[in-house]
């Protein structure tokens, strides 16, 4: 009995995974190979061409999503690393206050936050309206309905998921190792580059993973902030599911997206290296 205890304790989480991850995935994999329509029903025909058709029709949106996701991730890294660094090393006793402030906007729903950008960035809204009034911007200047707005929205919405893991990694860096580096005549830059940065890489790895995947799949920012040429793959999947009731195409697209992301992550994990990184990240 005692030997079984850990398995029994793990049972709920295995059940959870089985019911809410494995079963839906298998069902979706099944649907992605079916043909038919919502009225007459779908039947399994092992129609692998669903994948070819879906990718053929929607490759521009798929590629665009990866590009936007990538751009947003880079932007988040560039913005997020210094913030995490600052909080970890200069935050002093107020660290938790800063972290709380960072998370504060996220008590509001995702959609509302995005709509508030729509309000702020409106062509004649409080920001651009004022600047235009002062003659600092041309009258037809606009940010909404552009790629910049969509990537900006993605960057804003997922930023904390980049900052927090990096912060956790940096927080764990023992200041004494930096001192040691400096004692050994490393300049401040060299100490950062050769000591702090490598030690923070697990956080960067986790941060990129936690932001790139949801940012690439997100339909909300493109729908609310985008224009006529910013449709992302998430929007397409939503339309196929809810409007067209084309469950096979939607499922095939979902799996394609998942596969592309997994391959991307795999390559990324290999490139970054490294078991150490993963072990540190998993700790």
């Amino acid at each position: 009995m005692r030997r079984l205890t850990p398995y029994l304790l793990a049972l709920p989480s295995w059940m959870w995974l089985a019911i809410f991850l494995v079963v839906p995935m298998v069902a979706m994999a099944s649907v992605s190979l079916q043909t038919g329509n919502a009225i007459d029903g779908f039947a399994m025909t092992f129609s692998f061409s669903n994948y070819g058709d879906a990718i053929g029709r929607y490759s521009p949106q798929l590629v665009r999503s990866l590009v936007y996701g990538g751009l947003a991730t880079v932007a988040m890294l560039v913005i997020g690393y210094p913030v995490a660094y600052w909080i970890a090393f200069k935050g002093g006793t107020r660290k938790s206050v800063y972290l709380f402030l960072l998370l504060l906007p996220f008590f509001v729903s995702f959609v509302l936050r995005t709509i508030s950008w729509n309000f702020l960035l409106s062509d004649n809204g409080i920001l651009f309206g004022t600047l235009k009034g002062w003659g600092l911007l041309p009258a037809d200047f606009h940010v909404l309905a552009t790629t910049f707005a969509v990537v900006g929205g993605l960057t804003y919405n997922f930023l904390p998921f980049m900052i927090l893991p990096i912060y956790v990694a940096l927080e764990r860096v023992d200041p004494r190792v930096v001192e040691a580096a400096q004692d050994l005549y490393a300049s401040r830059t060299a100490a950062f580059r050769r000591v702090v940065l490598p030690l923070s890489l697990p956080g960067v790895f986790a941060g990129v993973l936690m932001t790139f995947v949801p940012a690439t799949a997100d339909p909300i920012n493109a729908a609310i902030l985008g224009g006529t040429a910013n449709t992302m793959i998430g929007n397409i999947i939503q339309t196929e599911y809810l409007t067209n009731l084309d469950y096979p195409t939607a499922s095939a697209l979902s799996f394609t997206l998942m596969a592309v992301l997994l391959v991307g992550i795999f390559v990324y994990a290999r490139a970054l290296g490294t078991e150490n990184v993963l072990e540190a990240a998993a700790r």
Partner: protein
Amino acid sequence: MNPFMRGMTQPRTRRDVFRLAGASAAGLALAACGVQGQKAAPPKADAVADFWAKQKKNGKVVFANWPEYMPEDKAPLEKFKQDTGIAYEYKEVIQENAEFFGKADPVLRAGQSLGYDIVVMTNGIQLQHMIELGYAVALDHSKLPNFQANAGQKYKERAYDPGNKYTVPYTSGVTGIAYNTEYVKEEITSIEALFDPKYKGRVGMMADAQEIGNFGMFALGIDPEKSTEADWQKAGEKLKAQRDAGIVRKYYDQSYIDAVSKGDVWLTMAWSGDVFQRQLAGEPVKFVVPAEGGTIWTDNMLIPKGAANPLDALMLMDYLYQPAVAAELDEFIQYVTPVPAVQDLLREKAKTATGEDKKALEDMVDSPLMFPTEADYAKLRSYTRLTTQQEQVFNPIFQSITQA
């Protein structure tokens, strides 16, 4: 380290490969299941009679409707409660037909109840699906005396539900053009304004395939009700050219109304009642039905399969067809009521009202968009009725434009 990560970062052992193959085989075995079709034959008349004979008044009704479709104080429903003793729950849970249907379909397909006794849906593809799939309860017209007596003839003869077998109209509205008078200085009369390069980047179009498809066809002088696949292609080309020329800023859902009242777009496809409500709020927006035509649509009440209180629901549907109740409702929502007698009732009310109320009521009574004349109706067209097969042609033509 979890096995998933290990799988990605370490070489696989042969055992892993076997395990993976085993999992895939199990997956394929499970994969043999399909999604059942539900296409339902129309119920037999005596089955309908049987169903209704068994129903009792439960003293409760749950009404699922769209936002801004009922006065704040719920006066019509309160009166209903007083008159009949039936308590109501009113839920503004429907924002979009496609999304609502997308969420309701799996529930109804599984034979479960939505938890609503009345839902309101527009006469589009999704309502057609509701009926085809047998998700709508056939109505007992012997229990709809007010509807028989008071509904306008047009609202009793609707192609999408002949004989009002499953639905009765809640209200109708018109899709036309709204424009912001601060930026658009001319009088807009033609649909060509939406294609005019001088409004480059300032035009809003709707993302919905039927809505935008109709406007593409109006611009080409095609009657959507009689359109063919070739017409849809032509309309698609026209709309694609409009997009490629950079004239369209964005393809909107309901959010178009904020965009046009803020001036992000200057003119846009729009739904009549939305614009009137904004006008009342003092915003500089104006609504026109273009000379080439506009779309008239009807939102319909129906009882979803599995509803707990069908008889109470039917009583409420009928209650809303009392002219006094319909008048009160329409005075708030300002769409086209299916009860023509409302116009006279509001005219009477305007006579005794004073000041601003009087003016507002008089405007309503004279508004061709609340009480269209025959000439107005002649300009208005319905959505194209599509079979499932046609839908699979129609949707991609327009979605490839709105979701490029």
